[in-house]
């Protein structure tokens, strides 16, 4: 499948490398050329420099043929706007958006974006870890 990833930070680059190694057709967009170094020398996908909220940049990344678009920028609003453009204008079948702010995450989930909120996810994971740990006094109710 053809995947376009917006944002080549730690998460974006790791996902890009994993999907590339699995044989998928991957294109990564980032404003900062230096970020592409994270992809490593053996990365077989393409890179496009530019902002993901610009239709021309998305077109250069081959968004019209994409099956999946993943927004992983460090700015929630950029990820949200890029995802809405991709969903509304280019009608990419699967759009995944990372949104740090739990309030915005809930709103845009209700508006039809497939969202992931690392904040609630990690807080939940840590909380589970603490609940599993017998030395921490539990407030009860943990499954």
């Amino acid at each position, binding site marked *: 499948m053809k995947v376009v990833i917006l944002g080549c930070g730690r998460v974006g680059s790791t996902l890009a490398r994993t999907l590339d190694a699995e044989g998928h057709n991957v294109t990564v967009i980032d404003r900062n050329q230096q970020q592409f170094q994270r992809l490593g020398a053996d990365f077989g996908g393409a890179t496009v420099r530019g902002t993901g*909220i*610009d*239709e021309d940049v998305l077109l250069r990344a081959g968004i019209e043929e994409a099956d999946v678009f993943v927004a992983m920028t460090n*700015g*929630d*609003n*950029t990820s*949200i*706007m*890029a995802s*809405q*453009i991709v969903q*509304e*204008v280019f009608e990419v079948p699967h759009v995944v958006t990372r949104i740090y*702010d739990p*309030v*915005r995450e809930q*709103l845009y989930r*209700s*508006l039809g974006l497939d969202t992931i909120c690392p904040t609630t996810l990690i807080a939940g994971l840590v909380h589970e870890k603490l609940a599993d740990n017998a030395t921490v006094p539990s407030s009860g109710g943990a499954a």
Partner: protein
Amino acid sequence: MFILVIGGGKIGYYLTKTLVSEGYEVLLIERNQQKVVTFSDRFGAVVMQGDGAEAATLQRAGASRADVVIATTGEDEDNLVICQLAKRMFQVGHVMARVNNPKNEEIFKRLGIDTTVSVTNIILSYMEQSLPDRPLTHLLTLSHADLAIVEANITSRSPHIGRPLGDVNLPPDVAVSAIIRGEDLLIPGPETRLQPGDEVIAITHRASEERLREALSQ
């Protein structure tokens, strides 16, 4: 009427100043604390520090009783999210966004922003109207019907001069609605003949705008 202005750049600043002097209830939200202090000295207590794209900030600003929210920051993505939060979470009746990249006007409208303002497009449209030889000027977009109202200037070099309108090969979904000749307004029919200096006002489907431009400038 209560108006929330987000973003204390030049546009937000002068907008707030003008709205206050016209007697509206206004609150300006600005991220930069330094600016908030400066503005508060000038306007009084109508400036609040905060990130307008945070629901908590909008809540604190009283967005749920705002009649209008105007997002004027220099970042289109921020203006979009501010307006969507205001509309969807706080049920603000009318949201307006400044659009920095003119291409984004279209997508903002599709994403539910009531009014968009692109300074680039405004300057462009004034410029086009003041150039006499432009074959076609875009006057207005009727976005709900996907129509545009355009104006064509018939120059002395136009191949259509003297021909009846019915013979001019226009796209099928174009309605020529009026001709301004000097100070007269003509309601044209297929027999109306074009003269140099005529201003032709037409309604067209937006998809045919480019073909209309070609038909009139050939």
